[in-house]
């Protein structure tokens, strides 16, 4: 395992936001990410779990180079991400965001949205772009007829598949998926999970998977990191963390996963008290 090179690494990164509640109110600071160090190895799936507001999405924005850390460094293939251009990063590293509503331009058809990255990077002639777009649309399980649709004409789950197709079209080496299937029904979720798993096997893609669905993490992840108020509190092989977590917090998190249980209602979760804010 340790022989594989690290494709994305963070060293002691922190991100602090300043909050001003009003003109007269004192400035408060939020340590959204607090001294995190992590390595993503080639061909590996790293699951990142933790409750709402613990800093997962903030960390993913730092990893994508979309925001600069307040302290610490992010390295992409050994080079500081701050020294790379937008385009250089996009060729190897692509995000898939949770929200399929705001991540698509309402004025672009699916075909335009999915082919745009190829045009921006000047890859392929017209025919090659068409072919590649069609292949990618097939791969995410969208019917070809969806190509002519605008986002408003698609259902929520269909839009998320468009977002995934757009991330895959440049054949990136690393995907950072923030809740990639939480808007999808189970049959589409299964297709997307198989697709991600297949990409890893056939193209040796590395993946950071942020998900609150522990079954999804369990299916895909080799390693799991547990985040709690901005810090990684536990990290290790997925089987070990998900079956025998060392931290009480992780145990509570695992207990909150819902399974099929007719008539059982929604149980009161231990960690809910902390979440009411």
């Amino acid at each position, binding site marked *: 395992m340790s022989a594989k090179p690290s494709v994305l690494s963070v060293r002691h990164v922190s991100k602090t936001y300043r909050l001003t509640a009003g003109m007269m109110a004192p400035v408060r600071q939020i340590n959204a990410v607090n001294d995190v160090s992590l390595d993503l190895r080639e061909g590996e799936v790293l699951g990142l779990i933790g409750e709402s507001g613990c800093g997962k999405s903030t960390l993913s924005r730092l990893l994508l180079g979309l925001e600069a850390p307040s302290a610490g460094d992010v390295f992409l293939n050994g080079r500081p991400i701050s020294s790379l251009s937008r385009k250089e990063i996009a060729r190897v590293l692509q995000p898939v965001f*949770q929200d399929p509503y705001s991540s698509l331009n309402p004025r672009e058809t699916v075909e335009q949205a999915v082919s745009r990255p190829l045009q921006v990077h000047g890859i392929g002639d017209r025919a090659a772009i068409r072919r590649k777009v069609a292949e990618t649309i097939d791969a995410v399980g969208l*019917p070809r*007829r969806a190509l*002519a649709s605008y986002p408003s004409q698609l259902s929520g789950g269909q839009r998320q598949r468009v977002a995934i197709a757009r991330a895959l079209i440049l054949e990136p080496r690393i995907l950072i998926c923030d809740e990639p299937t939480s*808007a999808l029904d189970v049959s589409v979720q299964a297709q997307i999970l198989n697709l991600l798993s297949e990409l890893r096997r056939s193209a040796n893609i590395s993946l950071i998977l942020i998900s609150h*669905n522990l079954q999804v993490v*369990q299916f895909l992840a080799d390693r799991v990191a547990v985040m709690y108020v901005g810090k990684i509190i536990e990290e290790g092989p997925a089987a070990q963390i998900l079956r025998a977590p060392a931290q009480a917090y992780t145990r509570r998190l695992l207990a909150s996963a819902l399974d099929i*249980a007719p008539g059982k*209602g929604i149980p009161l979760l231990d960690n809910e008290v902390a979440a009411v804010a």
Partner: protein
Amino acid sequence: MTATEMSESQPVLAVRDMHVRLPHRAGIVHAVRGVSFDLHRGETVCVVGESGCGKSMSAMAILNLLPRGARREAGAISFLGEDVLNAGERRMSELRGDRIGMIFQEPLTALNPSLTIGEQLMEVFRRHRPNRKGEARERAVDMLTQVGIPDPRERLSQYPHQLSGGLRQRVVIAMALMCEPTMIIADEPTTALDVTIQAQILRLLIDLKDRFGLALLLITHDLAVASRVADRIVVMYAGEVVEEAETAAFFAAPRHPYARGLMGCLPSAQAHGSGAPLQIIPGTVPSLIGEISGCAFRERCPEAEPACRSDVALRDLGGRSARCVHAGLEEAVA
């Protein structure tokens, strides 16, 4: 409460043979194709089904909130015995926000960013209860309390962006409750929220439903959630209802091959760490442009046979129903 509302057997909502057609570049999308179901007082019905199968369009059609250019047709849509299919938009706008509460996936679209929480809650009440305007403020505080929002009085003067996603969705629920609705239609109300918040919001909805005897139509793609909160499950596929059953019976033995396929897709249904791919339902939903003849699932169905090429009616299986040529034959064998 009127005499008709009191009647036990009369459903709160009855939908019969509802169709929705939408214009699209490539032709007319027949998104909802003859949907029928009932919803009773105090009951939770969950609608599940593949993305794009027409769940949201069905909800929008009932509420008369379809996108521009869409056409709705139905044998009947009645709410508390009243014909709302032919009632017209003026009557519907009286019912929406009053007797019918609505909760959508993204709370931000339901809230006006430039008005305070208090203004929005009070506005709903004043519009529907013009002769009780003076009570609006107290009612708003009361509803915020009911949905578990701390410091409700202070919240009245806050704007939506000053609240977290979970709190915003609570405000939307409070708004849906302002006029004591008889029915709530909730379309993926917790999809955009984290698990912990999701659990709170769902528990809140169920609790309110029990306390106020509401009828709840809940659209969700989460089978675990549906199993835990629904009294009945309605499964949609390609714009049609393909199965309907009481929750326990449904999860014990779904009768439609599509519903069985859905259960098989759950990551928990697979052997852990086996490395094997998840079971999927091969193929994609058929185009909803133009008419579909025969069973809409047959291209993907492992049990398809020549008879499936003819139209398949929803079969009554005694307290449940399924739209499949094999439905009902299992018992004969057993």
